[in-house]
């Protein structure tokens, strides 16, 4: 996904002379064609994330479509006020593509983890938050939004689904239909979720557009009271959107996500998934436990 981000951004940069790329030392290897091609519109500022956002806003003030990238904690949590004010309050559009997700680089420790990025971005009114599940979906997410005049957060990560879907902003995909309850699988957790619910009588919706959230599809496809969200960031992040969508009917909303605690150990992504219950078995056990009411 990270490589695809660079390919897509550089392609848009070559096609559209209103695209600007603003970096802070991370992933410059993926942006070579832009950085070497037209350094007036592509800039690596060095390690300064607050200014990275401010500089990108300056480009946007002059009519450019900035694409900004660094690791998730450093693009969202560190300069959140710059995104809120320089872009949000000022009514400007920009594309913010992150890498690292919740704990992709497990050995780096919690300084490089960002399970709270999506919830933090959702505090900014009007943002688009896209969590694609494959490289193809990353490409579509960036292309379809880079010039729409909105703040768009695109969360890329190491984990991916083998199959891509015709994802669109604001739309959830119906992957399978069942009678008992509804499971929402977010981004890269789809494949694991499908394996986890094998044999369960549930509908599975695939969500890559966290905001805007496709309430219509959820309401249409949900028959029973039970809805479970399988989300690759802090658990409960999607609960407000799901709760609002289902306000007209009695519901129970469960979340299978990343627990809200710091992880003080290292290792690989897969080991973190197992630890927090987001491997296939963990997802299966947690969904079953919720549906059984235990």
């Amino acid at each position, binding site marked *: 996904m990270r490589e695809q981000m660079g390919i897509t951004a550089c392609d848009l940069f070559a096609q559209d002379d209103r695209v*600007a790329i*603003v970096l802070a030392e991370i992933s410059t290897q993926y942006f070579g064609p832009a950085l070497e091609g*037209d350094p*007036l*519109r592509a*800039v690596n*500022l*060095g390690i*300064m994330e*607050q*200014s990275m*956002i*401010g*500089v*990108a*806003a*300056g*480009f*946007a*003030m*002059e*009519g*450019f479509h900035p694409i900004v990238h660094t690791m998730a904690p450093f693009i969202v949590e560190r300069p959140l*006020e*710059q995104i809120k*004010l*320089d872009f949000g*309050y*000022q*009514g400007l559009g920009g594309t913010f593509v992150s890498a690292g997700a919740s704990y992709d680089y497990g050995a780096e420790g919690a300084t490089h983890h960002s399970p709270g990025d999506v919830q933090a971005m959702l505090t900014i009114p009007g943002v688009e938050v896209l969590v694609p599940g494959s490289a193809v979906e990353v490409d579509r997410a960036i292309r379809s939004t880079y010039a729409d005049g909105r703040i768009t957060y695109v969360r890329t990560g190491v984990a991916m689904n083998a199959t891509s879907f015709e994802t669109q902003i604001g739309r959830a995909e119906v992957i399978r239909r069942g009678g008992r309850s509804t499971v929402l699988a977010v981004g890269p957790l789809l494949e694991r979720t499908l394996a986890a619910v094998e044999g369960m009588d549930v509908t599975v919706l695939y969500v890559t557009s966290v905001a805007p959230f496709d309430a219509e599809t959820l309401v249409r496809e949900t028959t029973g009271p039970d809805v479970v969200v399988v989300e690759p960031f802090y658990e409960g992040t999607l609960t407000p959107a799901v709760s609002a969508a289902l306000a007209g009917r009695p519901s129970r909303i469960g979340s299978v996500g990343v627990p809200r605690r710091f992880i003080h150990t290292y290792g690989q992504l897969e080991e973190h998934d197992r630890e927090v219950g987001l491997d296939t078995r963990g997802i299966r056990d947690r969904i079953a436990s919720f549906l059984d009411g235990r």
Partner: protein
Amino acid sequence: MPAEHADEIHRLMALATGDEKHDESSTSTLDALHVLYDRVLRFDAANPGWEERDRFILSKGHGPASYYAVLAHHGFFPPDRLAGFMTWGGTLGSHPDRQQVPGVEASTGSLGHGLPMAVGVALALRAKGLTDQRTIVLTGDAELNEGSNWEAILVAPTLELGGLTLLAVDNHSSTIDMNLPAKLEAFGWVARTVEGHDHAGLEAVLCERDDHRPTAVIADIPEGEW
């Protein structure tokens, strides 16, 4: 400033603030703002988005009564709007909003945002081939405590942003002794200090620019004065 202009701008400020007294943060910037709009900046008040204009960002967004008075004086909006300063339903807040006030380039108030945005604007102007256009950003001295400014101060010379000017109005409000000229020179800026009420001096240094290095103008407001 010419007496008739000074009287007019003070009258406009009084329209906004309701009396003849103004807070220090607003008054300390008045001379600099007047010189900028009267003698330095290229703009078209009837067409605030004119592409050929110079860009001015008031980073130190607080105390904007003088800014609004100068904008009204130069015709960006009718002076009667000043009466709605800070009121419900008005467009002139205690910090300026670019979506509400014609001529305001940036919505500021939270300190340390204007200079990084100005670096981006200067880069964007260069990318568009608008190399004659200036980008001038006004900060306070205490605002320069914010680390985000020093990121921008560090990177602007390496980007060779000769069209960028930092106008630091130094009314000695910083708790930390800033010694701005030495620091800015060390970071690679052209640094000029001028007495903050000296219109001819302000005009002279604000009209200077280097081909490669960004320029910092430290407008010194003598201690005890506004």
